[in-house]
């Protein structure tokens, strides 16, 4: 088991945004996290990546307890993430966005960077190469000199994925990776996710899009911060509780 949460709970004042969530992700899986609006999906992501501290419960990753660690430390353990809104470095070019994201591997030395030592130059060259490769993987290599803020929304989201790949993650968290994309972009993104998986990277994603759901090996359904169902996307679709959560019960007035 690569990743696990145990009794993960987060209160915002009196409101339980996430309560007693137990979930796990196995090595090599693509797992979907779905639920109606306000179910707590993004909160779960923020709890995992350290942007929020859980009220109680634990997050285990790769055999380590990462509960309540700082975001940059969690990134260092090998969890990459994207955001629902396309957060990037807007004033950097596409290439610079990815190059700047290559911070963890290889590490650089302050004085080496300042004095431009041969070792540092070699690292920069390596990073430039790797960044080009990542951009080719996500299909942005043609737009690499474009400013990130000038990209269309779909491309910005893909750039978010490229950025997350730069830290060489073991687990990739994608928050609504295809929301607001056109059909063509969605089809392309699905291919990208497959390729990422084939590189041995495990993916946990939040999504509403049904095509993306069908890519998932397993789907976890949240409602009001609680897990109400888990299984393959087919199973979940038939699940009584899930249907009720999305469409309301028949008896509702």
């Amino acid at each position, binding site marked *: 088991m690569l990743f696990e949460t145990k009794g993960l709970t987060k209160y915002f004042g009196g409101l339980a945004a996430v309560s007693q969530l137990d979930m796990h992700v196995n090595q090599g899986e693509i797992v979907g996290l779905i639920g109606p609006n306000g179910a707590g999906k993004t909160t779960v992501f923020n709890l995992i990546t350290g942007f929020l501290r859980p009220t109680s419960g634990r997050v285990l990753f790769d055999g380590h307890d990462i509960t309540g660690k700082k975001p940059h430390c969690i990134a260092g353990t090998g969890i990459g993430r994207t955001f629902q809104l396309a957060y990037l470095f807007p004033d*950097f070019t596409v290439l610079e966005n990815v190059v700047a994201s290559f911070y963890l591997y290889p590490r650089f030395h302050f004085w080496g960077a300042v004095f431009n030592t041969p070792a540092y130059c070699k690292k920069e060259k390596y990073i430039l190469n790797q960044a080009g490769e990542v951009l080719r993987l996500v299909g942005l290599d043609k737009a690499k000199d474009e400013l990130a803020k000038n990209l269309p929304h779909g491309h910005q989201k893909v750039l978010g994925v490229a950025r997350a790949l730069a830290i060489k993650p073991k687990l990739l968290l994608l928050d609504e990776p295809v929301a607001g994309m056109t059909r063509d972009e969605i089809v392309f993104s699905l291919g990208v996710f497959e390729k990422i998986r084939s590189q041995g990277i495990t993916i946990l994603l939040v999504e509403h899009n049904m095509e993306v759901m069908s890519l998932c090996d397993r789907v976890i359904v949240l409602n009001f911060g609680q897990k109400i169902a888990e299984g393959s996307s087919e199973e979940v679709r038939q699940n009584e509780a899930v249907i009720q959560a999305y469409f309301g019960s028949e008896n509702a007035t």
Partner: protein
Amino acid sequence: MNTKSKLKKTAGLAGLVVLLFLLPLFIKRPYYVHIFITTLISIIVVSSLRTIALSGQVSVGHAAFMGIGAYFSGVVSKELALTPWLTIPLGGLAAMIVAVFMGYPFVRVRAIYFSMVSLFGGIMIVNIIRVAQKWTGAAGLAGIPPLSPINIPGLMNITFLGQKVPYYYFTLLLTLVCLAFLYRIEHCRVGMIWKGIAQSHMVASTVGINEAGFRVLALAVGCFFAGIAGAWYAHYNLVVTPPAFGFLPSIFLVMYMLVGGRHRFSGPIVGTAILVMVPELFRGLKEYAPLILGGIMVIVVFLMPQGIAGLFDQMKAKYGEVRNRKVPGNAV
């Protein structure tokens, strides 16, 4: 950038440096040389302020770190009779250490809140200097030794006391070294990370960048150079007073940076040169002279939002065919 324009730029820069080195041949009046020396010192400080601003934090207490350098170097060289050549770097280190200790709590807040906290931090430092009368003097520190003479028998014998021209040359050298260092930091990976943090600290931390640590690093680097410049100023002026490092000078430093343009490395240089020297031309106006400063400020804010050094970029964006023009740095 193609090689030709790069060559042009280098040639222009070299020409400027040569001109600055030849300056004392044309300008004989000590007062004018004095103006050039203070301008050069200010350029170091404002450039170091911009280095901090790269990481998205505008410090409004930067002059206080100049003060730490000035007082530390002044007191230590006076009391312990050490040579200023040693105490000036120590003054820079002292400012850097204070910046790191203050930085850790301060970087918890961002943008305008950081500016507010830095304002109070600056006032606090100046008050501490004022209170430590035993060493820093009641009204100011007097009797700071000048730079010790450089005496290499048969080669050169440079004395500094009461001399403007040697001070000018060494200040110019110091400025060039400091600017070269700051330029390198900005244009390597460290500077890139600072600019990234300024644009989105959340994205920066998701790729594993310790953004708080890098912001403290920006403060440390910036304050080190402010401390060096302050210490240098102390051993040039030989008298320092607390108001020289208080709130108003800090505001002026920010103003020099913004008028020059914070998105370009040349911004602080252009801004400081213009704002220090132009009011000198209007000395005849006496108490109305500050109006000239205000006038320049208003014109720049309305017509050149990217500062004077950014004017070229601005023109290119408006009239040139350059699409996707890159704005280096960030916007607050």
